[in-house]
Protein backbone atom coordinates (compact mmCIF):
# COMPACT_ATOMS: atom_id res chain seq x y z
CA UNK A 1 0.00 0.00 0.00
CA UNK A 2 2.81 2.30 0.91
CA UNK A 3 4.50 1.53 -2.41
CA UNK A 4 1.37 2.21 -4.39
CA UNK A 5 0.97 5.55 -2.70
CA UNK A 6 4.56 6.42 -3.38
CA UNK A 7 4.20 5.37 -6.97
CA UNK A 8 1.18 7.55 -7.46
CA UNK A 9 2.92 10.44 -5.81
CA UNK A 10 6.00 9.93 -7.93
CA UNK A 11 3.90 9.69 -11.04
CA UNK A 12 2.09 12.89 -10.20
CA UNK A 13 5.36 14.69 -9.60
CA UNK A 14 6.88 13.31 -12.75
CA UNK A 15 3.83 14.22 -14.77
CA UNK A 16 3.93 17.73 -13.39
CA UNK A 17 7.62 18.06 -14.10
CA UNK A 18 7.14 16.64 -17.57
CA UNK A 19 4.36 19.10 -18.25
CA UNK A 20 6.49 21.94 -17.11
CA UNK A 21 9.60 20.84 -18.92
CA UNK A 22 8.51 19.58 -22.28
CA UNK A 23 4.95 18.93 -23.16
CA UNK A 24 3.84 22.51 -23.05
CA UNK A 25 5.39 25.69 -24.25
CA UNK A 26 7.55 26.23 -21.18
CA UNK A 27 9.88 23.69 -22.70
CA UNK A 28 10.73 26.43 -25.12
CA UNK A 29 11.53 28.65 -22.19
CA UNK A 30 13.60 25.98 -20.45
CA UNK A 31 15.60 25.10 -23.51
CA UNK A 32 15.72 28.67 -24.70
CA UNK A 33 17.26 29.72 -21.43
CA UNK A 34 20.06 27.22 -22.03
CA UNK A 35 20.61 28.02 -25.69
CA UNK A 36 22.61 30.88 -27.10
CA UNK A 37 20.67 31.23 -30.31
CA UNK A 38 23.08 33.81 -31.70
CA UNK A 39 25.78 31.16 -31.59
CA UNK A 40 23.71 28.49 -33.30
CA UNK A 41 24.65 27.72 -36.88
CA UNK A 42 22.24 25.79 -39.04
CA UNK A 43 24.02 22.89 -40.70
CA UNK A 44 22.56 21.33 -43.83
CA UNK A 45 23.07 17.65 -44.55
CA UNK A 46 22.01 16.27 -47.90
CA UNK A 47 20.15 13.03 -47.31
CA UNK A 48 18.89 12.15 -50.78
CA UNK A 49 18.58 14.06 -54.04
CA UNK A 50 15.91 16.47 -52.82
CA UNK A 51 15.78 15.67 -49.10
CA UNK A 52 17.89 17.55 -46.55
CA UNK A 53 18.33 17.52 -42.80
CA UNK A 54 18.82 20.83 -41.00
CA UNK A 55 20.65 20.61 -37.70
CA UNK A 56 20.62 23.57 -35.34
CA UNK A 57 19.12 23.65 -31.87
CA UNK A 58 16.02 21.69 -31.03
CA UNK A 59 14.68 18.95 -33.24
CA UNK A 60 16.08 18.17 -36.66
CA UNK A 61 14.23 19.73 -39.59
CA UNK A 62 13.58 17.75 -42.76
CA UNK A 63 13.35 19.68 -46.02
CA UNK A 64 11.94 18.25 -49.25
CA UNK A 65 12.36 20.40 -52.36
CA UNK A 66 11.04 20.14 -55.89
CA UNK A 67 8.98 21.70 -58.63
CA UNK A 68 5.90 21.94 -56.44
CA UNK A 69 7.69 23.90 -53.74
CA UNK A 70 9.04 23.13 -50.30
CA UNK A 71 7.79 20.78 -47.62
CA UNK A 72 9.44 20.87 -44.21
CA UNK A 73 8.99 18.73 -41.12
CA UNK A 74 9.21 20.58 -37.79
CA UNK A 75 10.48 24.08 -37.20
CA UNK A 76 12.85 24.10 -34.18
CA UNK A 77 12.67 27.35 -32.17
CA UNK A 78 11.17 30.69 -33.17
CA UNK A 79 14.48 32.41 -32.48
CA UNK A 80 16.09 30.33 -35.22
CA UNK A 81 13.44 30.91 -37.86
CA UNK A 82 15.43 33.49 -39.81
CA UNK A 83 18.45 31.21 -39.87
CA UNK A 84 16.39 28.19 -40.82
CA UNK A 85 14.64 30.12 -43.54
CA UNK A 86 18.01 31.26 -44.89
CA UNK A 87 19.21 27.65 -44.92
CA UNK A 88 16.09 26.61 -46.81
CA UNK A 89 16.42 29.48 -49.25
CA UNK A 90 19.97 28.38 -49.97
CA UNK A 91 18.46 25.18 -51.36
CA UNK A 92 15.68 26.62 -53.51
CA UNK A 93 13.64 29.75 -54.13
CA UNK A 94 10.40 27.78 -54.53
CA UNK A 95 7.52 28.62 -52.16
CA UNK A 96 7.25 26.94 -48.78
CA UNK A 97 3.99 25.05 -49.05
CA UNK A 98 3.77 22.52 -46.27
CA UNK A 99 4.95 22.22 -42.69
CA UNK A 100 4.39 18.91 -40.95
CA UNK A 101 4.72 18.71 -37.17
CA UNK A 102 5.79 15.39 -35.71
CA UNK A 103 4.44 16.37 -32.28
CA UNK A 104 3.66 19.45 -30.22
CA UNK A 105 6.84 20.07 -28.19
CA UNK A 106 8.30 23.54 -28.37
CA UNK A 107 11.65 22.47 -29.76
CA UNK A 108 9.82 21.11 -32.82
CA UNK A 109 7.02 23.65 -33.34
CA UNK A 110 8.61 26.83 -31.96
CA UNK A 111 9.19 28.29 -35.40
CA UNK A 112 5.78 27.39 -36.80
CA UNK A 113 4.38 30.91 -36.94
CA UNK A 114 7.42 32.49 -38.56
CA UNK A 115 7.97 29.78 -41.15
CA UNK A 116 4.29 29.48 -41.91
CA UNK A 117 4.18 33.21 -42.58
CA UNK A 118 7.04 32.84 -45.03
CA UNK A 119 5.06 30.26 -46.98
CA UNK A 120 2.13 30.08 -49.31
CA UNK A 121 -0.92 27.85 -49.84
CA UNK A 122 -2.41 27.98 -53.34
CA UNK A 123 -6.08 28.87 -53.35
CA UNK A 124 -8.69 30.00 -55.82
CA UNK A 125 -12.31 29.71 -56.85
CA UNK A 126 -14.72 29.77 -53.98
CA UNK A 127 -11.95 29.57 -51.40
CA UNK A 128 -10.04 32.50 -52.76
CA UNK A 129 -13.16 34.59 -53.08
CA UNK A 130 -14.72 33.86 -49.72
CA UNK A 131 -11.75 33.75 -47.35
CA UNK A 132 -9.77 36.92 -46.98
CA UNK A 133 -6.66 35.15 -45.72
CA UNK A 134 -6.70 32.25 -48.16
CA UNK A 135 -3.28 31.69 -49.62
CA UNK A 136 -1.48 33.38 -46.78
CA UNK A 137 1.03 31.15 -45.20
CA UNK A 138 2.01 27.54 -45.55
CA UNK A 139 -0.29 24.72 -44.49
CA UNK A 140 0.68 23.11 -41.17
CA UNK A 141 -0.16 19.41 -41.00
CA UNK A 142 -0.23 17.38 -37.80
CA UNK A 143 -2.19 14.74 -35.97
CA UNK A 144 -5.18 16.28 -34.28
CA UNK A 145 -3.73 15.59 -30.83
CA UNK A 146 -0.96 18.03 -31.69
CA UNK A 147 -3.56 20.70 -32.21
CA UNK A 148 -5.38 19.76 -29.02
CA UNK A 149 -2.16 19.83 -27.00
CA UNK A 150 -1.14 23.19 -28.43
CA UNK A 151 -4.60 24.67 -28.05
CA UNK A 152 -4.48 23.77 -24.38
CA UNK A 153 -1.36 25.80 -23.88
CA UNK A 154 -1.82 29.54 -23.45
CA UNK A 155 1.77 30.16 -24.46
CA UNK A 156 1.32 28.78 -27.95
CA UNK A 157 -0.25 31.37 -30.22
CA UNK A 158 -2.92 30.39 -32.69
CA UNK A 159 -0.49 31.27 -35.46
CA UNK A 160 1.58 28.27 -34.40
CA UNK A 161 -1.27 25.79 -34.52
CA UNK A 162 -1.70 23.18 -37.23
CA UNK A 163 -4.08 24.36 -39.92
CA UNK A 164 -4.93 20.88 -41.12
CA UNK A 165 -5.12 17.78 -38.97
CA UNK A 166 -5.84 14.08 -39.34
CA UNK A 167 -7.23 11.69 -36.78
CA UNK A 168 -7.05 8.35 -38.59
CA UNK A 169 -4.00 6.15 -38.68
CA UNK A 170 -2.48 7.92 -41.64
CA UNK A 171 -2.67 10.86 -44.02
CA UNK A 172 -1.27 10.87 -47.55
CA UNK A 173 0.09 13.71 -49.65
CA UNK A 174 1.58 13.71 -53.12
CA UNK A 175 4.15 16.44 -53.44
CA UNK A 176 7.23 17.05 -55.58
CA UNK A 177 6.64 13.89 -57.53
CA UNK A 178 6.41 11.45 -54.66
CA UNK A 179 3.97 10.04 -52.20
CA UNK A 180 4.38 11.31 -48.67
CA UNK A 181 2.70 9.19 -46.02
CA UNK A 182 2.11 10.68 -42.56
CA UNK A 183 1.60 7.84 -40.09
CA UNK A 184 0.20 8.29 -36.60
CA UNK A 185 2.26 6.44 -34.02
CA UNK A 186 0.09 6.31 -30.92
CA UNK A 187 1.38 6.83 -27.40
CA UNK A 188 5.11 6.75 -28.06
CA UNK A 189 6.79 10.07 -27.24
CA UNK A 190 3.35 11.70 -26.98
CA UNK A 191 -0.22 10.94 -28.05
CA UNK A 192 0.22 12.88 -31.28
CA UNK A 193 3.38 11.48 -32.85
CA UNK A 194 3.65 11.23 -36.60
CA UNK A 195 6.35 9.54 -38.60
CA UNK A 196 6.64 10.61 -42.23
CA UNK A 197 7.64 8.31 -45.08
CA UNK A 198 8.90 9.76 -48.36
CA UNK A 199 8.16 6.78 -50.57
CA UNK A 200 10.21 7.67 -53.65
CA UNK A 201 13.15 9.18 -51.82
CA UNK A 202 13.06 6.27 -49.39
CA UNK A 203 13.50 8.46 -46.33
CA UNK A 204 11.64 8.35 -43.02
CA UNK A 205 11.41 11.23 -40.57
CA UNK A 206 10.54 10.03 -37.09
CA UNK A 207 10.27 13.02 -34.80
CA UNK A 208 11.15 12.12 -31.24
CA UNK A 209 9.69 8.62 -31.55
CA UNK A 210 13.28 7.75 -32.44
CA UNK A 211 16.38 9.69 -31.42
CA UNK A 212 20.08 8.83 -31.32
CA UNK A 213 21.22 11.13 -28.56
CA UNK A 214 19.74 9.94 -25.25
CA UNK A 215 17.20 7.66 -23.68
CA UNK A 216 13.72 8.49 -24.96
CA UNK A 217 11.73 11.06 -23.09
CA UNK A 218 8.40 9.39 -22.34
CA UNK A 219 6.04 12.33 -21.98
CA UNK A 220 3.48 10.67 -19.76
CA UNK A 221 1.48 13.87 -19.38
CA UNK A 222 0.78 13.70 -23.12
CA UNK A 223 0.11 9.99 -23.30
CA UNK A 224 3.65 8.74 -23.96
CA UNK A 225 4.56 5.15 -23.05
CA UNK A 226 7.59 2.91 -23.32
CA UNK A 227 5.58 0.30 -25.21
CA UNK A 228 4.55 3.00 -27.67
CA UNK A 229 8.21 3.75 -28.33
CA UNK A 230 8.88 0.07 -29.00
CA UNK A 231 5.84 -0.14 -31.27
CA UNK A 232 7.11 2.92 -33.12
CA UNK A 233 10.53 1.34 -33.59
CA UNK A 234 8.91 -1.79 -34.98
CA UNK A 235 6.77 0.29 -37.31
CA UNK A 236 9.82 2.15 -38.59
CA UNK A 237 11.73 -1.10 -39.09
CA UNK A 238 8.78 -2.52 -41.01
CA UNK A 239 9.00 0.38 -43.44
CA UNK A 240 12.74 0.05 -43.97
CA UNK A 241 14.36 -2.04 -46.65
CA UNK A 242 18.13 -2.18 -46.12
CA UNK A 243 20.62 -2.32 -48.94
CA UNK A 244 22.46 -5.22 -47.31
CA UNK A 245 22.47 -6.58 -43.79
CA UNK A 246 21.81 -3.64 -41.53
CA UNK A 247 23.34 -0.95 -43.73
CA UNK A 248 22.05 1.46 -46.30
CA UNK A 249 18.74 1.46 -48.09
CA UNK A 250 16.02 3.48 -46.40
CA UNK A 251 17.43 6.42 -44.45
CA UNK A 252 16.00 7.69 -41.19
CA UNK A 253 16.04 11.27 -39.94
CA UNK A 254 15.61 11.16 -36.16
CA UNK A 255 14.05 13.78 -33.93
CA UNK A 256 17.46 14.49 -32.45
CA UNK A 257 20.88 13.20 -33.35
CA UNK A 258 22.43 11.73 -36.42
CA UNK A 259 21.13 10.50 -39.74
CA UNK A 260 20.42 6.79 -39.37
CA UNK A 261 19.51 3.63 -41.17
CA UNK A 262 18.07 0.30 -40.13
CA UNK A 263 21.05 -0.78 -38.04
CA UNK A 264 20.67 2.16 -35.70
CA UNK A 265 16.93 1.69 -35.33
CA UNK A 266 17.41 -2.03 -34.65
CA UNK A 267 19.92 -1.27 -31.91
CA UNK A 268 17.50 1.27 -30.44
CA UNK A 269 14.65 -1.24 -30.50
CA UNK A 270 16.86 -3.92 -28.98
CA UNK A 271 17.80 -1.63 -26.10
CA UNK A 272 14.23 -0.54 -25.42
CA UNK A 273 12.89 -4.08 -25.62
CA UNK A 274 15.50 -5.54 -23.29
CA UNK A 275 14.98 -2.75 -20.76
CA UNK A 276 11.22 -3.23 -21.00
CA UNK A 277 11.54 -6.95 -20.33
CA UNK A 278 13.76 -6.34 -17.32
CA UNK A 279 11.53 -3.71 -15.77
CA UNK A 280 8.40 -5.71 -16.50
CA UNK A 281 9.95 -8.78 -14.90
CA UNK A 282 10.83 -6.78 -11.80
CA UNK A 283 7.38 -5.26 -11.67
CA UNK A 284 5.73 -8.65 -12.00
CA UNK A 285 7.87 -9.90 -9.14
CA UNK A 286 6.37 -7.17 -6.99
CA UNK A 287 9.29 -4.80 -6.91
CA UNK A 288 8.45 -1.19 -6.14
CA UNK A 289 9.65 1.66 -8.30
CA UNK A 290 12.26 2.51 -5.71
CA UNK A 291 13.53 -1.06 -5.74
CA UNK A 292 13.64 -1.10 -9.52
CA UNK A 293 15.58 2.13 -9.60
CA UNK A 294 18.01 0.73 -7.04
CA UNK A 295 18.46 -2.43 -9.12
CA UNK A 296 19.64 -0.28 -12.06
CA UNK A 297 18.06 -2.26 -14.89
CA UNK A 298 19.66 0.03 -17.47
CA UNK A 299 23.20 0.02 -16.15
CA UNK A 300 24.67 -1.59 -19.26
CA UNK A 301 23.13 1.08 -21.46
CA UNK A 302 23.64 4.10 -19.21
CA UNK A 303 27.17 4.97 -20.41
CA UNK A 304 25.80 5.44 -23.90
CA UNK A 305 22.28 6.72 -23.42
CA UNK A 306 21.88 8.49 -20.07
CA UNK A 307 21.41 12.23 -20.30
CA UNK A 308 20.41 14.97 -17.93
CA UNK A 309 17.01 16.09 -16.66
CA UNK A 310 14.20 14.61 -18.71
CA UNK A 311 16.70 12.37 -20.49
CA UNK A 312 18.15 10.99 -17.26
CA UNK A 313 18.16 7.33 -16.37
CA UNK A 314 15.90 7.97 -13.38
CA UNK A 315 13.35 9.78 -15.47
CA UNK A 316 13.39 7.09 -18.15
CA UNK A 317 13.14 4.14 -15.78
CA UNK A 318 10.42 5.82 -13.76
CA UNK A 319 8.30 6.59 -16.81
CA UNK A 320 8.91 3.10 -18.17
CA UNK A 321 7.84 1.56 -14.90
CA UNK A 322 4.76 3.74 -14.65
CA UNK A 323 3.58 3.08 -18.19
CA UNK A 324 4.22 -0.65 -18.39
CA UNK A 325 1.23 -2.80 -17.66
CA UNK A 326 2.08 -5.94 -15.72
Amino acid at each position, binding site marked *: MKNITLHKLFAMVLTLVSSIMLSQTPVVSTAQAQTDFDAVEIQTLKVRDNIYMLVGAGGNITVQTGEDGILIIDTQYAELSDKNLAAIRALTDKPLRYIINTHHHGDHVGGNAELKAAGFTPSGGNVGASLSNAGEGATIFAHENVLLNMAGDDNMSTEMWPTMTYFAEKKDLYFNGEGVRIIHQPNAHTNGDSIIFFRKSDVITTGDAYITSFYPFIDMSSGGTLQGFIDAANSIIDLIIPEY*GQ*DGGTLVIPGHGRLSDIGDVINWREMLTIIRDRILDMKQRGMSLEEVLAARPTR*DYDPRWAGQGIFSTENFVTAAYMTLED
Partner: protein
Amino acid sequence: MGKICCRVSLLFVFSIASFSALAEKNFSGVWVGNYSEDFPDRLPGPELGDYAGLPLNDADRLRAQSWSASLIALPEYQCRVHPSDYASSFANIRIWEEREPITEQLIAIRIQHFAWQTRRTIWMDGREHPPEYAQHTAMGYSTGEWVAHQLKVKTTHLKEGWLRRNGVARSDQATVTEYFIRHDDILTWTVIIDDPVYLDEPFIRNRDYIYSIDSQVGNYPCDPVIEMVREPGYIPHHLPGTNPDLLIYSERHDIPVEAAMGGANTMYPEYIERLQELPKPSELRAGQE
Protein backbone atom coordinates in the same frame (compact mmCIF):
# COMPACT_ATOMS: atom_id res chain seq x y z
CA MET B 1 72.65 28.23 -68.71
CA GLY B 2 69.25 29.23 -67.45
CA LYS B 3 67.62 26.25 -69.18
CA ILE B 4 70.15 23.87 -67.68
CA CYS B 5 69.40 25.24 -64.22
CA CYS B 6 65.69 24.77 -64.85
CA ARG B 7 66.15 21.21 -66.02
CA VAL B 8 68.32 20.41 -63.03
CA SER B 9 65.70 21.87 -60.71
CA LEU B 10 62.89 19.94 -62.35
CA LEU B 11 64.92 16.76 -62.15
CA PHE B 12 65.45 17.47 -58.48
CA VAL B 13 61.72 18.02 -57.92
CA PHE B 14 60.83 14.78 -59.72
CA SER B 15 63.44 12.93 -57.75
CA ILE B 16 62.01 14.21 -54.49
CA ALA B 17 58.49 13.35 -55.63
CA SER B 18 59.52 9.82 -56.55
CA PHE B 19 61.37 9.43 -53.30
CA SER B 20 58.35 10.66 -51.39
CA ALA B 21 56.15 8.23 -53.24
CA LEU B 22 58.50 5.46 -52.24
CA ALA B 23 57.47 6.08 -48.64
CA GLU B 24 54.06 4.86 -49.71
CA LYS B 25 53.85 1.12 -49.51
CA ASN B 26 51.88 -0.66 -52.15
CA PHE B 27 49.34 -2.97 -50.53
CA SER B 28 47.45 -3.81 -53.71
CA GLY B 29 46.56 -7.41 -54.28
CA VAL B 30 44.85 -10.33 -52.63
CA TRP B 31 45.89 -11.21 -49.09
CA VAL B 32 45.10 -14.48 -47.37
CA GLY B 33 44.40 -14.61 -43.65
CA ASN B 34 47.00 -16.33 -41.47
CA TYR B 35 45.05 -18.14 -38.75
CA SER B 36 47.93 -19.25 -36.58
CA GLU B 37 46.83 -16.64 -34.07
CA ASP B 38 43.48 -16.62 -32.22
CA PHE B 39 42.02 -19.23 -34.53
CA PRO B 40 39.10 -20.24 -32.25
CA ASP B 41 38.07 -16.62 -31.98
CA ARG B 42 38.18 -16.09 -35.71
CA LEU B 43 36.60 -18.76 -37.86
CA PRO B 44 34.71 -21.04 -35.44
CA GLY B 45 33.86 -18.08 -33.21
CA PRO B 46 34.38 -17.54 -29.50
CA GLU B 47 32.81 -19.70 -26.86
CA LEU B 48 29.97 -18.43 -24.73
CA GLY B 49 31.15 -16.69 -21.59
CA ASP B 50 34.67 -16.02 -22.88
CA TYR B 51 35.51 -12.39 -22.28
CA ALA B 52 39.07 -13.07 -21.08
CA GLY B 53 41.67 -10.60 -22.21
CA LEU B 54 39.19 -7.90 -23.12
CA PRO B 55 39.39 -4.56 -21.30
CA LEU B 56 35.62 -4.33 -21.05
CA ASN B 57 33.88 -2.47 -18.23
CA ASP B 58 31.00 -3.63 -16.02
CA ALA B 59 28.39 -2.23 -18.40
CA ASP B 60 29.75 -4.16 -21.35
CA ARG B 61 30.03 -7.29 -19.27
CA LEU B 62 26.33 -7.12 -18.53
CA ARG B 63 25.61 -6.53 -22.22
CA ALA B 64 27.53 -9.71 -22.98
CA GLN B 65 25.94 -11.70 -20.20
CA SER B 66 22.49 -10.71 -21.41
CA TRP B 67 23.19 -11.69 -25.00
CA SER B 68 21.52 -14.72 -26.50
CA ALA B 69 22.86 -16.45 -29.60
CA SER B 70 19.25 -16.80 -30.76
CA LEU B 71 19.41 -13.12 -31.66
CA ILE B 72 21.24 -13.86 -34.89
CA ALA B 73 18.39 -16.11 -36.00
CA LEU B 74 16.16 -13.06 -36.39
CA PRO B 75 15.90 -12.12 -40.07
CA GLU B 76 17.09 -8.57 -39.54
CA TYR B 77 20.25 -9.86 -37.81
CA GLN B 78 21.16 -12.70 -40.17
CA CYS B 79 23.06 -10.64 -42.71
CA ARG B 80 24.48 -8.10 -40.28
CA VAL B 81 28.04 -7.54 -41.46
CA HIS B 82 31.19 -7.55 -39.40
CA PRO B 83 32.19 -3.96 -38.63
CA SER B 84 35.47 -2.78 -40.13
CA ASP B 85 37.33 -3.07 -36.83
CA TYR B 86 36.37 -6.76 -36.61
CA ALA B 87 36.51 -7.67 -40.29
CA SER B 88 40.28 -8.09 -40.19
CA SER B 89 39.72 -11.41 -38.44
CA PHE B 90 38.33 -13.14 -41.48
CA ALA B 91 39.49 -14.78 -44.65
CA ASN B 92 40.80 -13.17 -47.78
CA ILE B 93 40.85 -9.49 -48.54
CA ARG B 94 41.56 -7.54 -51.67
CA ILE B 95 43.27 -4.15 -51.50
CA TRP B 96 43.55 -1.70 -54.37
CA GLU B 97 44.30 1.93 -54.93
CA GLU B 98 42.40 4.74 -56.53
CA ARG B 99 44.70 7.34 -58.06
CA GLU B 100 44.15 10.58 -59.87
CA PRO B 101 44.91 9.61 -63.49
CA ILE B 102 47.09 12.57 -64.39
CA THR B 103 49.03 13.33 -61.23
CA GLU B 104 49.00 9.77 -59.85
CA GLN B 105 48.10 11.27 -56.50
CA LEU B 106 46.71 8.63 -54.16
CA ILE B 107 43.06 9.41 -53.52
CA ALA B 108 41.91 6.32 -51.66
CA ILE B 109 42.79 2.81 -50.68
CA ARG B 110 39.94 0.32 -50.94
CA ILE B 111 39.58 -2.94 -49.08
CA GLN B 112 37.14 -5.68 -49.88
CA HIS B 113 36.56 -8.34 -47.24
CA PHE B 114 35.46 -11.84 -48.08
CA ALA B 115 33.24 -11.86 -45.02
CA TRP B 116 29.89 -10.38 -46.02
CA GLN B 117 31.50 -8.92 -49.13
CA THR B 118 31.90 -5.56 -47.44
CA ARG B 119 33.97 -2.85 -49.00
CA ARG B 120 35.56 0.04 -47.22
CA THR B 121 37.35 3.17 -48.33
CA ILE B 122 40.33 4.79 -46.68
CA TRP B 123 40.55 8.33 -47.96
CA MET B 124 44.13 9.42 -48.56
CA ASP B 125 43.53 12.90 -50.00
CA GLY B 126 43.55 14.83 -46.74
CA ARG B 127 39.82 15.29 -46.40
CA GLU B 128 38.17 15.89 -43.04
CA HIS B 129 35.86 13.51 -41.27
CA PRO B 130 32.15 14.39 -41.54
CA PRO B 131 30.24 16.02 -38.69
CA GLU B 132 28.86 13.88 -35.90
CA TYR B 133 25.30 14.16 -37.21
CA ALA B 134 26.27 12.36 -40.42
CA GLN B 135 25.38 8.72 -40.87
CA HIS B 136 27.29 5.98 -39.07
CA THR B 137 27.96 2.75 -40.91
CA ALA B 138 29.43 -0.68 -40.24
CA MET B 139 32.59 0.33 -42.11
CA GLY B 140 32.77 3.80 -40.58
CA TYR B 141 34.56 6.75 -42.15
CA SER B 142 38.29 6.26 -42.57
CA THR B 143 41.15 8.57 -43.45
CA GLY B 144 44.76 7.53 -43.77
CA GLU B 145 48.26 8.94 -43.71
CA TRP B 146 51.75 7.55 -44.11
CA VAL B 147 53.81 7.34 -40.97
CA ALA B 148 57.21 6.24 -42.17
CA HIS B 149 56.35 3.09 -44.12
CA GLN B 150 53.20 2.38 -42.21
CA LEU B 151 49.72 3.28 -43.27
CA LYS B 152 47.97 4.84 -40.26
CA VAL B 153 44.18 4.93 -40.48
CA LYS B 154 41.68 6.75 -38.31
CA THR B 155 38.05 5.60 -38.37
CA THR B 156 35.01 7.34 -36.93
CA HIS B 157 31.24 7.14 -37.58
CA LEU B 158 30.92 3.48 -36.73
CA LYS B 159 27.64 1.86 -35.86
CA GLU B 160 27.44 -0.21 -32.75
CA GLY B 161 29.41 -3.39 -33.33
CA TRP B 162 31.12 -6.09 -31.29
CA LEU B 163 34.52 -6.97 -29.92
CA ARG B 164 33.71 -10.66 -29.92
CA ARG B 165 30.89 -12.54 -31.54
CA ASN B 166 29.53 -13.69 -28.21
CA GLY B 167 27.76 -10.52 -27.21
CA VAL B 168 30.61 -8.22 -26.19
CA ALA B 169 29.46 -4.90 -27.59
CA ARG B 170 31.51 -2.09 -29.04
CA SER B 171 29.63 1.21 -28.98
CA ASP B 172 28.91 3.66 -31.77
CA GLN B 173 31.04 6.22 -29.94
CA ALA B 174 34.23 4.25 -30.51
CA THR B 175 37.09 5.49 -32.67
CA VAL B 176 39.57 3.14 -34.25
CA THR B 177 43.23 3.59 -35.18
CA GLU B 178 44.80 1.06 -37.50
CA TYR B 179 48.30 0.41 -38.76
CA PHE B 180 48.96 -1.52 -41.96
CA ILE B 181 52.56 -2.69 -42.07
CA ARG B 182 53.96 -4.62 -45.01
CA HIS B 183 57.03 -6.81 -44.66
CA ASP B 184 57.51 -8.15 -48.16
CA ASP B 185 54.72 -10.70 -48.53
CA ILE B 186 53.46 -10.39 -44.98
CA LEU B 187 50.92 -7.77 -43.96
CA THR B 188 50.44 -6.99 -40.29
CA TRP B 189 47.18 -5.25 -39.56
CA THR B 190 46.92 -3.69 -36.11
CA VAL B 191 43.57 -2.45 -34.85
CA ILE B 192 43.34 -0.22 -31.77
CA ILE B 193 39.82 0.43 -30.49
CA ASP B 194 39.05 3.30 -28.13
CA ASP B 195 35.55 3.03 -26.78
CA PRO B 196 34.64 5.55 -24.07
CA VAL B 197 31.37 3.71 -23.47
CA TYR B 198 32.41 0.10 -23.01
CA LEU B 199 36.19 -0.13 -22.62
CA ASP B 200 38.36 0.81 -19.65
CA GLU B 201 41.47 0.77 -21.85
CA PRO B 202 42.08 0.62 -25.59
CA PHE B 203 41.73 -2.84 -27.07
CA ILE B 204 44.48 -3.86 -29.48
CA ARG B 205 44.17 -6.68 -31.99
CA ASN B 206 46.78 -7.87 -34.49
CA ARG B 207 46.16 -9.94 -37.58
CA ASP B 208 48.61 -11.22 -40.17
CA TYR B 209 47.96 -11.74 -43.85
CA ILE B 210 50.03 -13.41 -46.56
CA TYR B 211 50.24 -12.03 -50.08
CA SER B 212 48.85 -14.39 -52.67
CA ILE B 213 49.24 -14.41 -56.43
CA ASP B 214 46.81 -17.27 -57.00
CA SER B 215 43.87 -16.44 -54.70
CA GLN B 216 40.75 -14.41 -55.13
CA VAL B 217 38.10 -12.98 -52.86
CA GLY B 218 34.90 -14.92 -53.26
CA ASN B 219 31.43 -13.50 -53.18
CA TYR B 220 29.27 -13.72 -50.08
CA PRO B 221 25.56 -13.62 -50.85
CA CYS B 222 23.20 -13.44 -47.91
CA ASP B 223 19.42 -13.47 -47.99
CA PRO B 224 17.61 -13.35 -44.66
CA VAL B 225 14.81 -15.83 -44.10
CA ILE B 226 12.35 -16.50 -41.31
CA GLU B 227 13.87 -19.46 -39.46
CA MET B 228 11.35 -19.49 -36.63
CA VAL B 229 7.95 -17.88 -36.39
CA ARG B 230 8.05 -15.52 -33.45
CA GLU B 231 6.03 -12.66 -32.07
CA PRO B 232 6.74 -9.43 -33.95
CA GLY B 233 9.39 -7.44 -32.16
CA TYR B 234 10.61 -10.38 -30.10
CA ILE B 235 14.23 -9.94 -29.00
CA PRO B 236 15.97 -12.98 -27.48
CA HIS B 237 18.07 -12.14 -24.43
CA HIS B 238 18.76 -13.30 -20.89
CA LEU B 239 17.52 -11.38 -17.89
CA PRO B 240 20.38 -10.48 -15.52
CA GLY B 241 21.47 -13.49 -13.52
CA THR B 242 19.60 -16.04 -15.65
CA ASN B 243 22.03 -16.87 -18.47
CA PRO B 244 22.67 -20.64 -18.24
CA ASP B 245 25.56 -20.52 -20.73
CA LEU B 246 27.88 -18.14 -18.93
CA LEU B 247 30.11 -20.83 -17.46
CA ILE B 248 30.59 -22.89 -20.61
CA TYR B 249 34.00 -21.44 -21.38
CA SER B 250 35.40 -21.43 -17.86
CA GLU B 251 34.24 -24.97 -17.10
CA ARG B 252 35.33 -26.44 -20.42
CA HIS B 253 38.84 -25.08 -19.99
CA ASP B 254 38.90 -25.09 -16.17
CA ILE B 255 39.59 -21.37 -16.05
CA PRO B 256 38.49 -19.33 -13.01
CA VAL B 257 35.24 -17.53 -13.68
CA GLU B 258 36.70 -14.15 -12.77
CA ALA B 259 39.31 -14.48 -15.49
CA ALA B 260 36.75 -15.61 -18.03
CA MET B 261 34.66 -12.53 -17.32
CA GLY B 262 37.51 -10.31 -18.56
CA GLY B 263 38.47 -6.79 -17.64
CA ALA B 264 41.52 -4.67 -18.31
CA ASN B 265 43.62 -6.49 -15.73
CA THR B 266 43.17 -9.80 -17.55
CA MET B 267 45.19 -8.43 -20.47
CA TYR B 268 48.45 -8.16 -18.59
CA PRO B 269 51.11 -10.74 -17.65
CA GLU B 270 50.83 -9.70 -14.01
CA TYR B 271 47.38 -11.24 -13.95
CA ILE B 272 48.96 -14.70 -13.99
CA GLU B 273 49.76 -14.27 -10.29
CA ARG B 274 46.18 -13.35 -9.56
CA LEU B 275 45.00 -16.27 -11.67
CA GLN B 276 46.92 -18.70 -9.51
CA GLU B 277 45.09 -17.46 -6.43
CA LEU B 278 41.64 -17.99 -7.92
CA PRO B 279 39.79 -21.30 -7.58
CA LYS B 280 39.28 -23.27 -10.76
CA PRO B 281 35.84 -24.68 -11.55
CA SER B 282 37.16 -28.22 -10.98
CA GLU B 283 38.40 -27.24 -7.53
CA LEU B 284 35.07 -25.66 -6.69
CA ARG B 285 33.24 -28.80 -7.75
CA ALA B 286 35.57 -30.93 -5.68
CA GLY B 287 34.90 -28.74 -2.66
CA GLN B 288 31.19 -29.23 -3.03
CA GLU B 289 31.42 -33.01 -3.22
